[in-house]
């Protein structure tokens, strides 16, 4: 079903492109954590991309970026997952993910597993070239700035390692958040130090991961901010989970996209975003 939609969409977009050359046809890869745990990030992404002038499509036959297999050293498993992703997304003008780590997986790591398959390597390279992390895409490619968004309080920002180091996501979210009325920034000490999530690492070495996230939580609490924001569901789940375990309910973890799309009040009220 979704294959048909995608193919049909492609033809349509070609026609649309003739009429409006600036239109960006974006394939949204929601990522498995957003799909299962926090769909509102996916809807926030659609809202923001549309506000930025993109046409957004979400291919229904998407699953995972393949990081669990890749980081475990299972190259064959990674390829099996990557074939799917490449087929589903290579026809778009841009592929956008609301996660630095999943975006970096496609942008930087797919090519590692296709070294011996020239045809797939080319396709993986093409996909890498059109793939972007959501927040940097909005600013760097779409030159988007949010308007008429309000949220009272202060936020502190955790930079996810993949976003920060592999994809240079740093200024972009802060720039957009500075336009949110009523929201102040409180810098986080060691903002770019790993939170201890690391995908499978956090369950394989749960106790080391726990020590790392406990330290992150200390730093977050020291800011006395009302919101902890970030661009990766994995890190946010980890830090928020530790905050809650330690009984710190005063600080709320949100994805930056949720705030920028104006969904924060709704989410904090406990409602689905769709």
């Amino acid at each position, binding site marked *: 079903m979704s294959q048909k939609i995608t193919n049909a969409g492609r033809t349509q977009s070609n026609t649309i492109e003739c009429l409006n050359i600036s239109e960006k046809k974006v394939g949204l890869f929601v990522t498995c954590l957003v799909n299962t745990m926090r769909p509102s990030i996916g*809807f926030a992404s659609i809202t923001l991309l549309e506000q930025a002038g993109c046409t957004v499509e979400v291919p229904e*036959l998407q699953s995972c970026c393949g990081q669990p297999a890749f980081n475990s050293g299972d190259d064959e498993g990674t390829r099996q997952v990557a074939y799917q992703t490449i087929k589903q997304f290579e026809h778009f003008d841009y592929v956008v993910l609301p996660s630095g780590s999943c975006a970096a997986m496609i942008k930087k790591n797919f090519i590692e597993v296709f070294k011996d398959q020239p045809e797939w390597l080319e396709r993986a390279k093409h996909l890498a070239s059109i793939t972007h992390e959501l927040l940097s895409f909005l600013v760097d490619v779409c030159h988007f700035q949010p308007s008429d968004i309000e949220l009272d309080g202060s936020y502190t920002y955790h930079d996810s390692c993949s976003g920060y180091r592999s994809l240079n996501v740093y200024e972009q979210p802060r720039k957009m958040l500075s336009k949110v009325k009523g929201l102040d920034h409180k810098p986080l000490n060691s903002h770019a130090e790993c939170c*201890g999530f690391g995908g499978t690492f956090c369950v394989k070495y749960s106790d080391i991961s726990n020590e790392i996230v406990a330290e992150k939580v200390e730093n977050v609490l020291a800011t006395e901010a009302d919101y902890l924001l970030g661009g990766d569901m994995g890190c946010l789940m*980890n830090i928020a*989970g530790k905050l809650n*375990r330690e009984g710190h309910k005063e600080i709320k973890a949100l994805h930056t996209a949720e705030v920028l799309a104006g969904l924060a009040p709704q989410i904090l009220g406990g409602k689905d975003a769709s």
Partner: protein
Amino acid sequence: MQANRPEDFSKNVSKALAQPDLKKIIRRTTDKAETKRAEAVANFPEFENARSQGQKVKDHTIKYMDHYLAEFEKNALAQGTVVHWASTGEEAAKIVLDICRQHKAKKVTRSKSMLGEEIGLTHAFDNSEMERIETDLAEHIIQLAGDPPSHIVWPAMHRSREDVVKLFREFHTDPTYSEEITDLVRSARRDLRTKFLTSDIGISGSNFLLADSGSSCTVTNEGNAELTITPPKVHIVTAGIEKLVPSMAHAVPLLRLLTRSATGAEITQYITFHNGPKRPNDADGPQECHIVLVDNGRTKMLAEGMEEMLRCIRCGACMNHCVVYKHIGGHAYGSVYPGPMGSVLTPHLNSLEVANKQTHACTLNGRCEDVCPVNIPLPKLLRSLRAQSWQKKYEPLTNRFVVQSFAMMAKRPRLFQLLSSCGVIFMKVFSRKGWIKYMPFTSGWTRNRDLIEPESTTFMHQYKKMKKAKSGGA
């Protein structure tokens, strides 16, 4: 303290995490190292330039290793140095001990060398009739304590000042009763001074080997390398073959990178180039010089595509910036080389089968690569070792099963979506007030933190419903 074994990694980690003050003690050193390195880099605008230059020098030398080794040997011989070749650590240690025995040595002084630790020189001496005297202050402390090193630059960083005070009072002939650092250093100095002058043989490592002159360079802050090398009749250098550089001009950018990355200093107190035995007109120096060139897995690394790791200049920046190292410390790794660089090296020096757990004890956050002065892609190398472990089936069966099942599902998106929906229903059963405190199969997560409650249904489910409603409404 008994040395940990790499194969006991998980046990070593639990032991380390149970030590209440360890994290604080490590932090005291690594935090300072991080700050000082950042300042040094900020004050050195050419840092990036030097970094790529340093990388190029190393890559070039490694590529033409055979040529430069031959050139080094020729020039070292011309200086009167005896050159030995050792393919394994054991062989290297035996060569060193044989030389000492030929000279009927009773006491040997040693200046800090990780290669010496790698080839098991400390144990070899301790099991011999000879007395081993460590002259680097930190090595002196861990020798008194009977500890293995826990960091490649600060081997005693796991010991607190209080520990040092106790050790010095117990072992020094004329100990201090002050707890001031300067007094403690003086106490060590008094103890070591006579030992320097009565040593039969001095053993050092090398930071750089210069091919065009056959010289060996040591970089220290205490001057102990110079005092180890100059007074005794015989000087023995042990060095890994990757220490080679073509000439002094090539060593300079690497020196600038090394000191800044290791301690944040622009330069160390002592940088000495040792040029073989004493010549007729020299005022002092050893009468006999030996250099043992050690392979111990290095050519194998070259053959197996791990040549980037041979760039390593042993600055320790990767471990100072590693979140895992900072919490578990160096001993947990069970190897001479801890932290990110150690997790790549140990599988080659030992075997991947015994040291594969270390390659997984990393979040692949990339900070080590970011600060590496010679751009070693440590996360990429760690992952490639994981891929080798996977192929050789060293991974525990349960991990393999979980990862494989996930990949099996993920390549079938319809099944994946269906199972995601089931997962949400399952999680909802265990959710209370927005959080999951406990749930079967997720103890790795819920042992230490709560799991956020998922929304009512998956994104895909909500998205399809929304689209249907829109098209119905249109």
